[in-house]
């Protein structure tokens, strides 16, 4: 299986653990992720300013993947939703198709509508499947309680995702967690927004939103959280101590990218999965997972 790997802006700058672990687990599953030179912003940041510009920015990336004949795999939920949405609109709306191609002319690019976009977790769930993941597990996460964090744009707007999962009661990430042998915790806050999108607009509201989810995960005595988006990771991991201080809480909940947890289940060591880049220490969790191994 070959895909174009779309990192987006945030992953290479702030989430090296995601970048490293995605490539590691892809190798284990014989998935060939190809880096495409010239990939740039997905366009989402400019959606608030000027819709047409944001469509053209998204289309640059879609065109570059089309030139390689590759479907895109995304890591960030927002990149996923935006590239998927623009791809869908350009494929179905002739007027917009022509308008965007007119803008792209100066870049010698042409949108044709020949590829699809998928988030890495959806690819693991749909294209690889939980059975194969189960078979690849070398070190079961049996006894580990994991809180799945879906984020928003992985599921919503559901109209662009062919209803591959239920936006109100999703199960795709839960299924992937279960395939590692771990327990997947069920709690209503697993679909709540992390607040990351408005961190620069209103820090108090943003951190308040994160703290609601952290409180819930803490009360469930989770061993770890599994995130699938660099913005969720930013809030639940990088900002966890700051938010704990603000609300007088000692959370100390390891927040890992799902692919880091999957990598542990596939038998890799911490350093092969970039766990040192996580802000909340993961040593105790890894020790618990390794159990008698050490």
């Amino acid at each position: 299986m070959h895909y174009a790997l779309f990192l987006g802006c945030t992953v290479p700058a702030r989430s090296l653990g995601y970048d490293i672990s995605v490539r590691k687990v892809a190798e284990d599953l014989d998935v060939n992720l190809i880096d495409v030179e010239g990939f740039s912003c997905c366009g989402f940041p400019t959606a608030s300013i000027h819709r047409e510009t944001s469509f053209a920015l998204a289309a640059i990336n879609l065109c570059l993947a089309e030139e390689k004949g590759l479907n895109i795999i995304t890591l960030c939920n927002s990149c996923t939703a935006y590239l998927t949405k623009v791809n869908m609109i350009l494929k179905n709306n002739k007027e917009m198709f022509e308008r965007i191609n007119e803008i792209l002319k100066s870049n010698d690019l042409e949108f044709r509508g020949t590829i699809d976009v998928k988030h890495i977790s959806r690819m693991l769930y749909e294209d690889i499947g939980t059975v194969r993941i189960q078979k690849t597990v070398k070190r079961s996460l049996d006894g580990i309680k994991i809180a799945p964090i879906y984020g928003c744009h992985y599921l919503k707007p559901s109209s662009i995702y062919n209803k591959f999962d239920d936006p109100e009661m999703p199960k795709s990430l839960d299924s992937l967690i279960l395939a590692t042998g771990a327990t997947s915790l069920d709690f209503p806050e697993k679909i709540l927004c992390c607040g990351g999108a408005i961190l620069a607009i209103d820090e108090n509201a943003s951190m308040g939103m994160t703290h609601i989810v952290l409180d819930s995960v803490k009360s469930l005595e989770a061993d770890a959280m599994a995130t699938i988006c660099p913005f969720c990771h930013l809030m639940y991991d990088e900002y966890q101590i700051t938010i704990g201080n603000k609300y007088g809480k000692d959370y100390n909940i390891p927040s890992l990218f799902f692919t880091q947890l999957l990598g542990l289940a596939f038998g890799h060591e911490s350093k092969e999965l970039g766990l040192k880049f996580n802000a909340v220490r993961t040593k105790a969790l890894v020790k618990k997972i390794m159990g008698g191994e050490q």
Partner: protein
Amino acid sequence: MAQEKNDKKTEQNPDDMSIITEDELDSQFKYEILKEPGGENFLRCMQCGTCTASCPVKAIDPDYNCRRIIRRALIGDKEHVLNSKFIWMCSTCYSCYERCPQDVKITELMFALKNIAVKHGFIHPSIKAQVTLLEKFGALSEISEFENRMREKYGLPKIKQSPDRVKKVLEKENIKEIIEGDS
């Protein structure tokens, strides 16, 4: 004048509940919204409040109220809607969008309102700053030699940022003029 008055309104109380008089309203505002992509279903709103009940931002900051934003837009309280920090506070989680019984497509409506606000010269500074970054790096973050050395150390391929294509699009769309506003 109206602008000045609204600035005060926003500063003193972000969602001033004082009585709105007719001369403050713009009866054409709703048509402007209907024409903007994302605003097409806006008149369907029946003010049921499912959006506010679903809103995770509202759960933290009770002053943020998307139903009220829609109501103000419907009656033509244009200055207040466009000049308010609130339209920028939507976290775009799409909870309201999924649950709205009238399919108002509220998240898209918020994008439409922000696009209109920008046209009228109201833009949040943090959003403006992002355009500068996009022009410079083609992305929101710079991947410098430092990041690339780190990437190499961990066996990751280097990233060569190429802002040229992004820059061309931004220039062709006159983004600089757009974010400076024209009103």
